[in-house]
């Protein structure tokens, strides 16, 4: 979107609310739904990549050192990565913003 949605007036919307801008879902930062965030303990991490694989929002990326982190603009704090992490390297902590 060219501007935040709360700034659109009714007559500025496309007919039928059609979205004619390709791929603009990327601009919609869904991470602010989150109440918890994953925190990695790299000393326990075996770099298996299961967290990366299981993340339903593809919000986990690999760092140059081969460890994993969540992109907090998209991570919704669902906790699937923490649940699936075999060595227990991911802890969900309250995300106070």
């Amino acid at each position, binding site marked *: 979107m060219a501007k935040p949605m709360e700034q*659109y007036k*009714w007559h500025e919307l496309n007919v039928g609310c059609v979205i004619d801008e390709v791929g603009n879902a990327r601009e919609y930062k869904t991470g602010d739904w989150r109440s918890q965030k994953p925190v990695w303990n790299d000393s326990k991490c075996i770099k298996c990549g299961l967290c990366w694989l299981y993340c339903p929002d593809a919000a986990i990326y690999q760092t140059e050192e081969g460890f994993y982190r969540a992109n907090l603009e998209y991570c919704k704090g669902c906790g699937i990565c923490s649940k699936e992490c075999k060595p227990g390297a991911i802890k969900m902590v309250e995300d106070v913003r």
Partner: protein
Amino acid sequence: MTTKKGIEVSIAASIAAQLARVEVVAAYPITPQTHIVEHLSELVANGELEAVYINVESEHSAMSACCGASAAGARTFTSTSAQGLELMHEILFIASGMRLPIVMATVNRALSSPLSIWGDHSDIMAARDTGWIMLFCENGQEVVDSIIMAFKIAENRNVLLPVMVNLDGFSLSHVIEPIEFPSQKDVDSFLPPYKPLYSLHPDKPVTMGAYAMPELYTEAKYAQETALINSKKVIIDVMAEFGERFGRHYKPVETYNTENADFAFICLGSINENISTAIDELKSNGKEAGLIKLRLFRPFPKDELLAVLKDKKRIAIVERAMPGGAANSPLYNEIASLIYANKLHITLENYIVGLGGRDVHPEDFIDVFDMKIAAKKDNNNYNVIGVRE
């Protein structure tokens, strides 16, 4: 050159869709709509109509397929009745919200239960606030002309809304009437091919029917409502252009003998012919009654109605649907709010007639005029004409 022939109104409705060169028809047969879609499928099967006929398993799927076809840029037509319209109900809102110019012939029929295949307006009154433009027809010629006009209204860039053309089940759909069909050449010139503002195409991807957060939903619905209200101007223009080209003139609100009378009936659909007969009969006895016919029901033609209502003293609102627990029938409630908002002093009466195909006689309206029925008023705000007590 035009041709006039005696033809069943349902068949005439499908020929009107053929003349409009519809490209997709998705429909499920239901009495009394059946002949319309049967004939359309024949026209497609015989190669007389270059369209895709989608056989679907329900009306819910019929309207869904119509939405998809219209979103892809096809001129789309369907038709249904009663339970079929109810099964389509949620998709009706999607068609209007997505601003898809689908045209549907709604053959008005009573809703079950008890099961009835016969005509009344309980189906359309349950779907009246779905955001569609709604036209009502009194005779077969109006059905044909309205279907052709409906596409031109719906597809106008300032409208882009679906249009329902309502015709009464059996008493209109199954009668044989003399109907004048415009030539294909004249229809083509009046109704050029549909050029969508947006369409689903891989060369230019768009998203339709997306999610709206609370921050946007109000603005989205306000934009849609404004388009519906403003469509009246286009409807009037299209009716005027149709009149110039084809010599048959329509208006959102039409009248009969209203200039001579303090009293008028207001009604939708084919019963208007019976009321006209009653008015002629009254006139021959030196009594004057008028008739206000709503050709356009949505958007509600407030200004046009006020112009004919303002000098009346007494109005009888005649409707073919039970109020369902409301104070009065739907049309009455809207006219009452219009009269109240404009501080008019008019006595309003509400009559329910013709439910589930019950015959309606001109004599009933003569009794209404003579206040023979009003005298029997009980706890209800409305009278159900002919109910056995």
